[in-house]
């Protein structure tokens, strides 16, 4: 959507393109409690998440479902000493603020999965901005599309997933 970046961007935003930002570690080791709650929420009986024998034979031990990757780096609703709510995908909110585009929607989300995430893993995430489009007029308003990604690696440096998002920040016309 925003494959070629605009040339009229603020210098600070321009400097973010291709730069790794907001490198963060997950705040707790990966665990199976949320996995079983997700299995329950989706009524998913896949034995690799319920039966240790199946997990050993098929996945070499317990793993977490690939689509849960974003769960592990979503912040707690409250934590000691924090005065403002933490937001995931901080880069998206930075772009809204710096480009003066208060409204935003996410239009596309792609996740490519790599090494399975296992209980006890510590994950590191990095946000990368790939492009920001020129101003465009849509039915929502006038604004810019931006493409950015979140890379997730485990404690061995193995790539577990890369999420790609297309956001549209805009002012209502």
């Amino acid at each position: 959507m925003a494959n070629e970046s605009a040339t009229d961007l603020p210098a600070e935003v321009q400097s973010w393109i291709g730069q790794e930002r907001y490198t963060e570690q997950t705040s707790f080791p990966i665990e199976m409690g949320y996995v079983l709650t997700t299995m329950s929420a989706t009524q998913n009986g896949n034995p690799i998440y319920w039966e240790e024998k199946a997990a050993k034979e098929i996945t070499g031990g317990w793993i977490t479902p690939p689509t849960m990757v974003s769960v592990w780096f979503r912040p707690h609703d409250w934590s000691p000493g924090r005065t403002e709510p933490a937001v995931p995908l901080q880069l998206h909110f930075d772009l809204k603020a710096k480009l003066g585009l208060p409204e935003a929607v996410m239009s596309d989300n792609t996740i490519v999965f790599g090494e399975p995430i296992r209980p006890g893993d510590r994950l590191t995430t990095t946000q990368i901005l790939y492009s920001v489009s020129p101003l465009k007029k849509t039915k929502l308003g006038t604004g810019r599309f931006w493409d950015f990604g979140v890379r997730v690696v485990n404690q061995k440096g193995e790539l577990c997933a890369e999420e790609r998002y297309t956001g549209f920040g805009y002012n209502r016309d």
Partner: protein
Amino acid sequence: MAANLMLGDVKEGQDLPVLEKLVKPVTVVLGAMASRDWRPQHHDYQFAVNNNGLQDIIMNTPNLAAWFERYLTDWTGPKGRLGRIKFRMKDSVYPGDTMQFAGKVTGVARGAKSTGWVDVKIELTAGPKGCVSCEARICVPETPDANPWKLKGDDWKP
């Protein structure tokens, strides 16, 4: 849970079995909490209606992703390993809706070490509403001994 699907059982154009599920308030709230999504439009009716202009609380995207995964692995069996997934959100899913997942195979290709890739397009609808379009790529075995979960490095290219 189905037995493990083999690559030879899959043909382009093939329909996946349809899954239908009635959404209750607990479906929305449990899914949001399981995915650590604390935003109020997924658990607070008054906020959803009065602040966001919605008709009720709504299913959150990460939990819908988990539903798509469940739909796919119900079909492939536990050796099915998801490689890639892409969604486009079009409309909200509310309590009282019946979600219907309907998928079609759009491509089949050989992979490494006696495995293969299956591309699937899935539409999540609720009555007349088209809610989410999804494209997924999932790896399945070609032989009984093959196991997509053992692929690493250059053998895993989703």
